[in-house]
């Protein structure tokens, strides 16, 4: 009998579970660490030994110390759960999102993403073909990002317990020596850069979910940004902050940076790229693109004198082609984000409060 749907029994830990793991997950992700199928993946970081500098405490002159307890190298770890509905949308799916979201969180800390662990909560009745499609997408995204999925878990819940499929990814990476990127590092005078158009992901998902059709469809921008960040850090090691404006959009991200760094940020509406379809969809629904989620864009705060060079490097790199400077950091009003509107007025840009609701009339 061919089992083409997830059954409760797949979650029991017995033969069916093992078969599911072999045929779906290992078949897609297979790598030496994962193939051993131990309870934890044990990873050899010898390749990063040079990152443990001679200056680490406890090591005498000339000795290198590969212990992870020393300040160099620094471990970055992050986790994210993905519950997006629908599972598939223009430009991506929950699998791609699960990989890229976590890869990007590591990249925004200046870390090189290395390994992911993925937990799956499957709803009874989910077609296995659907699961395989999602996993294939994860494999493709992981390959593009250059990360391996080395550990995983599967649970099955009763019909109705999960919207088809939930994925949690935990990622680890290492931060190269000399990199210090943080939302609290912005300083007055710095340039604020944006890697491309905003609002694509949120509108793409909403369109699919609500059955809205546009003549020029919007595709999600979901993408792994670690190679772009790599290039950026090489060209400008002094980058102060990196953030990807996901839930809450560009507005929320800029507010977070302004608050954490104790500065103000001033941006110009005319400089912020928004696709015509995203603009139209937002107008129709009463949404503001500044608050719509992105999954393949980043905001960078860098010293003003580095901005031009950084932008040039970004524009030559995949996912950075549309990079622009959109504003500057000021010393006050502290914690606020101001925007010069397209017609020359000024407004405050608040953090997203509550949910965005479509207009009534």
């Amino acid at each position, binding site marked *: 009998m061919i089992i083409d749907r997830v059954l409760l029994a797949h979650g029991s830990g017995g033969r069916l579970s093992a078969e599911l793991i072999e045929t779906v997950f290992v078949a897609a992700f297979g790598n030496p660490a994962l193939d051993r199928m131990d309870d934890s993946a044990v990873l050899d970081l010898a390749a990063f030994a040079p990152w443990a500098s001679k200056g680490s405490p406890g090591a005498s002159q000339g000795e290198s110390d590969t212990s992870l307890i020393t300040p160099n190298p620094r471990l970055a770890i992050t986790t994210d759960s993905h519950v997006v509905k629908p599972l598939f949308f223009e430009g991506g799916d929950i699998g791609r999102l699960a990989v890229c979201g976590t890869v990007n969180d590591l990249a925004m800390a200046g870390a090189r993403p290395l390994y992911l662990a993925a937990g799956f909560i499957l709803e009874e009745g989910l077609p296995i073909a659907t699961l395989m499609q999602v996993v294939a997408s994860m494999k493709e995204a992981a390959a593009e990002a250059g990360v391996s999925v080395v550990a995983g878990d599967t649970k099955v819940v009763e019909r109705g317990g999960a919207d088809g499929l939930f994925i949690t990814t935990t990622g680890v990476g290492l931060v190269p020596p000399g990199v210090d990127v943080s939302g609290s590092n912005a300083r007055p005078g710095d340039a604020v850069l944006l890697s491309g158009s905003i609002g694509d992901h949120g509108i793409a998902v909403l369109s699919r979910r609500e059955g809205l059709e546009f003549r020029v469809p919007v595709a999600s921008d979901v993408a792994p940004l670690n190679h772009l960040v790599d290039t950026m850090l090489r060209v400008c090691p002094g980058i102060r902050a990196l953030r990807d404006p996901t839930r809450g959009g560009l507005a929320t991200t800029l507010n977070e940076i302004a608050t954490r760094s104790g500065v103000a940020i001033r941006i110009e509406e005319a400089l912020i790229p928004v696709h015509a379809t995203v603009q139209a969809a937002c*107008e129709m629904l*009463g949404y503001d693109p500044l608050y719509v989620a992105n999954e393949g864009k980043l905001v960078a705060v860098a010293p003003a004198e580095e901005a031009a060079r950084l932008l040039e490097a970004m524009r030559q790199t995949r996912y950075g082609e549309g990079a622009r400077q959109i504003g500057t950091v000021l010393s006050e009003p502290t914690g606020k984000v101001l925007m010069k*509107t397209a*017609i020359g007025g000024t407004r*405050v840009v608040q953090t997203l409060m509550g949910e965005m609701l479509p207009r009534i*009339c």
Partner: protein
Amino acid sequence: MFTNMKYLSEFRDSGLTARLVERIHRRPSIPVNLMEVCGTHTVAMFRHGIRQLLPRHVSMVSGPGCPVCVTANRDVDWAIAVARQPEVVLATFGDMLKVPGSSSSLQQARAEGCQVRVVYSTLDALRIAQSHPKKKVVFFGIGFETTAPTVACSMLEAEQSDLRNYYVFSVHKVMPPPMRALVESGEVRIDGFLCPGHVSAIIGSEPYRFLARDHGVPCVVSGFEPVDILQSIDMLLAMRAEGKAEVEIQYRRVVRPEGNPLAVEQMYRVLEPCDAEWRGLGTIPGSGLQIRKEYARFDARLAFQIDPGPTREHPGCRCGEVLRGVIAPPSCPLFGRICTPENPVGPCMVSGEGTCSSWYSFGGAE
């Protein structure tokens, strides 16, 4: 049509807006109070930073054109009470969820297990009724003439398909009566009205004529883009400078003087004018819409005997004065302190198009 995209860029063109601003500044500097009635206009003006571009002698005052904000406390209480009936599914626009009633809100009721569903339109509500024949679906009918025709149609649709479990709790209101009430009260001097663009798309420009003719207040039906709003303000200033009081349409691409007679016909086929209570303005005769006798079977007020209990207003809340244009939100002692979008005391802070919410979200740049 793809060419519609151009309306956004053309009506936001900064060259055009700069010229309009210049024109406005060249008008005689007589102090004027212009009232924008519609919440969407309030938001648009903030969003594009229009207020700072105007000369100091032109004051913009926000009016009561936010259907969420003017829903009476008593009506919110009623909706919460009906949602508490076990066989009821209350279908509502999202904005009404957080509006505080006398002691609770729909959001709270939902958290307590009541069936409250957010819908984008009455079509969703009809679908819920169709797929849940054992439930009684009550649609919380708020909105002005822009929305009321679609709600009327939903009852016609329900009649056609012999749907037996669909009801409407109508607290719909119509626009011109409160404008008359404001002008007649004389509480705030109003030198001109920016009239709501989408309501006017339905009712046309004639319903505002009495304001110009009987009260000498010029009116301009305005669109929502920066060019629309600035042009409309300029048109009002022009009329004032010439001592003229008329009703003009700036939003020509959408509004005709006769409006949309078909929509109006549908609306009045199912609904009829009645007195209505407006939060902050009290009862205004002929300002509401109730369901006609012929469609009584859809009237939630008749189908459910609900006593929501005594109505209570929060003592410090000054939403009423904000809605009448008497004060601006920062003058309310609760504004930004106790009353915020996360913890709203009054509806003006809850609605995305509420005056207080707009000031909170966009203001502070001056």
